[in-house]
């Protein structure tokens, strides 16, 4: 780049700009994230942005590796008792905090008690409810000391569970399982997260954080595997607007974007080729059908609505090929599940046949063009959701279904779904917190008002999930869960429509990026080339 471009418009300004505009990208990973972390406190965290940042700053007992699998973290190995109730973790001898002190089992006791303490106000506390007594503690019914987590000695941690939990290790890879440094929490109180106070035990430590601007991290030389960490500095930019991220990527200002504008996907692929990454993601896009309301209490109506949705059209046209047609709730590729996953029985039929069938079903139920169903689709404000709802309304029209729309912002939409449940059909999406079918199937439990947007109340289904929870044999458990999903698909209280894909832009300079179902890319496994 030259510093001597001549122009008639504000030449001085441009000249200064030209000289200042060459960013030094060499040893520093410039990473765009979808927004700011709302907090750096792993016990208050809830977002994917926080997950990405905290994964670099802190290390839990187990971690996600480059491919999103489970790998040893602070724990070098672990034993699980035969009854599946006791986990005994052996901690690495060389695990250290960035203040030089060793990471001990009691640090994890402190941290896990802290997240369960109701005073912490932890949004994701319930994800760790499988630990013994966790739920009553979080409800303030028992003291935190009763939590089933114990430091046997400095380097041995024992965690007892309420009941066998096949996905417990997977749960511990979530950022809620990350430790905080007890001494710094006690010394600085609420300010322990501030740059300068933040004590890290992960591959990076916090340098600075300005909301809406950037969060800077540098390599933690005290980290046990510091010699395997290649990138020296990470600058995280909160870029909410996806097109902005693309421009900054093309201008060479960031090395990666974690989410792309779906409508631009085709042109991006043309322009940027294999720098565009699209990969299946652990998430489902679905419509909850309020089965407590007429006429949606009739399974024929729900099935007809489901049948007539042309998922291929939505995936290819509305979402530009960045989504995958879904005929089941649990996404493919998930851990701890059966090989041959259950799916809607009409999954392989052509859309024309399905439409005929749907008309027939509705006729049986007493509906059709002469006696149309009036239906409102509720969705949260977003271009994609509006387009999808409009297309689905058109697909339902031949069935004699008249659709109106109700658009709310995200807070109002989900508050309505949780409290009033005044919807007919409502858009929802779920990205799994851990790779296990239970994390999708629990959405339909009758005692789960926060997620049960289908208002589903089926003792058979609830019973199967209870049975699966008590089963320690993984294969047997997978079978029970697939039976539960089959029941769900028979009743479709929520209509699975699409599986999410993760989308990303990755610079050719950034090596070691492995696309995976969890869309996790810990910086410690990446390298940068000039």
């Amino acid at each position, binding site marked *: 780049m030259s510093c001597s471009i001549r122009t008639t418009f504000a030449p001085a300004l441009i000249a200064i700009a030209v000289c200042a505009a060459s960013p030094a990208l060499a040893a520093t990973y410039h990473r765009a994230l979808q927004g700011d972390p709302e907090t750096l406190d792993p016990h208050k965290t809830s977002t994917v942005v926080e997950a990405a940042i905290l994964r670099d700053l802190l290390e839990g007992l187990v971690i996600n590796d480059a491919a999103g699998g489970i790998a040893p973290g602070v724990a070098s190995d672990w034993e699980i008792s035969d009854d599946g109730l006791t986990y005994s973790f052996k901690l690495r001898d060389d695990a250290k905090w960035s203040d030089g002190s060793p990471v001990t089992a009691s640090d994890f006791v402190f941290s896990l008690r802290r997240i369960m303490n109701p005073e912490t106000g932890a949004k994701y506390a319930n994800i760790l409810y499988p630990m013994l007594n966790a739920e009553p503690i979080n409800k303030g019914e028992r003291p935190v000391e009763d939590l089933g987590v114990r430091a046997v000695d400095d380097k041995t941690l024992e965690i007892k569970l309420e009941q066998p939990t096949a996905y417990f290790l997977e749960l511990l890879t979530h950022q809620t399982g990350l430790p905080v440094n007890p001494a710094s929490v006690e010394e600085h109180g609420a300010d322990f997260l501030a740059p300068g106070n933040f004590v890290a035990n992960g591959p990076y430590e916090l340098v600075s954080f300005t909301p809406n601007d950037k969060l800077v991290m540098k390599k933690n030389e005290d980290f046990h595997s510091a010699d395997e960490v290649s990138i020296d500095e990470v600058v995280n930019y909160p870029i909410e607007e996806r097109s902005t991220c693309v421009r900054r990527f093309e201008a060479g*200002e960031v090395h990666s974007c974690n989410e792309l504008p779906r409508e631009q996907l085709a042109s991006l692929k043309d322009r940027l080729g294999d720098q565009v990454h699209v990969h299946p993601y652990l998430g489902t896009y679905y419509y909850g059908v309020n089965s407590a309301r007429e006429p949606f209490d009739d399974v024929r109506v729900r099935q007809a609505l489901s049948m007539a949705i042309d998922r291929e059209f939505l995936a290819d046209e509305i979402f530009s090929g960045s989504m995958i047609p879904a005929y089941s709730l649990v996404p493919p590729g998930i851990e701890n599940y059966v090989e041959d996953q259950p799916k809607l029985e009409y999954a392989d039929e052509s859309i024309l046949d399905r439409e005929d069938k749907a008309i027939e079903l509705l006729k049986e139920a007493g509906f059709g063009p002469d006696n149309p169903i009036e239906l409102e689709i509720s969705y949260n404000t977003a271009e994609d959701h509006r387009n999808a709802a409009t297309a689905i309304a058109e697909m339902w029209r031949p069935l004699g279904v008249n659709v109106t729309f109700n658009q709310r912002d995200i807070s109002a939409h989900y508050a309505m779904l949780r409290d009033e449940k005044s919807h007919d059909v409502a858009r929802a999406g779920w990205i799994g917190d851990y790779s296990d079918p239970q994390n999708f199937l629990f959405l339909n439990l009758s005692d789960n008002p926060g997620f049960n947007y289908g208002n589903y109340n089926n003792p058979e289904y609830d019973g199967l999930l209870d049975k699966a929870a008590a089963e320690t044999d993984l294969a047997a458990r997978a079978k029970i869960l697939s039976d539960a999903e089959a029941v769900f698909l028979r009743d479709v209280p929520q209509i699975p429509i699409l599986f999410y894909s993760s989308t990303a832009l990755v610079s050719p300079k950034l090596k070691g990026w492995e696309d995976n179902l969890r869309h996790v890319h810990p910086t410690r496994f990446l390298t940068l080339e000039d």
Partner: protein
Amino acid sequence: MLRYAVRRLLGAIPTIFVIITIAFFLMRIAPGGPFDRERTLESQVMANLNAAFGLDLPLWQQYLRYLGNLFQGDLGPSFVYRDFSVQQLLGAGLPISIQLGASALLLALVVGATLGVIAALRQNSAIDYLVISVATFGITVPNFVVAPVLSLIFGVWLGVLPAGGWQDFSLAHMALPVVTLALPQIAVIARLIRGAMLEALRSDHVRTARAYGLTPTMVVGVHALRAASLPAISYLGPAAAALLTGSVVVETIFGIPGIGRYFVQGALNRDYTLVMGTVVIIAVFIVVFNLIVDLLYAAIDPRVRYD
């Protein structure tokens, strides 16, 4: 004049109080709360959060508590950015918004006034039509179009300016956002000045000034422009307040850590305290700039007196 200013500022306190009250309750009418997201929270977790932020109290108690804290200069914790207080967020962002807004204002004034005067002096000439066309363009093309286009041209294609981002005291990072912010203001100011200038050039006192044999520069630059600047100045009061408190579009597209985003983000996230904080700031700015405009009027127009 000083007494007048103090009186006006004291008189603004009840206004701001009313604004705060209305904003506080309006915000709460919106359905949903700060902790309602795609992932619905367990009821116990929600109860813990509400208790931690005092949202479990009756609304009137929350209101009194907010006012009490406000009088002590405490804007409260952010509900969404949980590691920060509203003061910290606004304190970090406001100087940047002011820096950008003030630069845009200055640019708009200089360019807008110059264009307006030139157009008026050459009424119905090619240059006049050009200024009017540019002004119409500046007003009609929204900044959410201008911003990405500028970023694309100068940041991606030409690669001479950053496509986005912020560095303190970096002119390069300021250039595109400032131009984006200034464009519509240039357009408005040019049109206002042109119109008022045409009128001023035909007024008695300008004719008198000419008759006295003053140089054209004196006549136009001092006597006519002084009178012609009044409409632009009344426009600039609220415009300056809006510019200095940040623009959500420009900040989002260029990735600038100002406070404009907080207003919109805060409202969408139901981050009650953050929205209230920005409301207070914007209200204060509007009051102060309206006062400045009135004082400027007195300084410029000899017919206006405040006693």
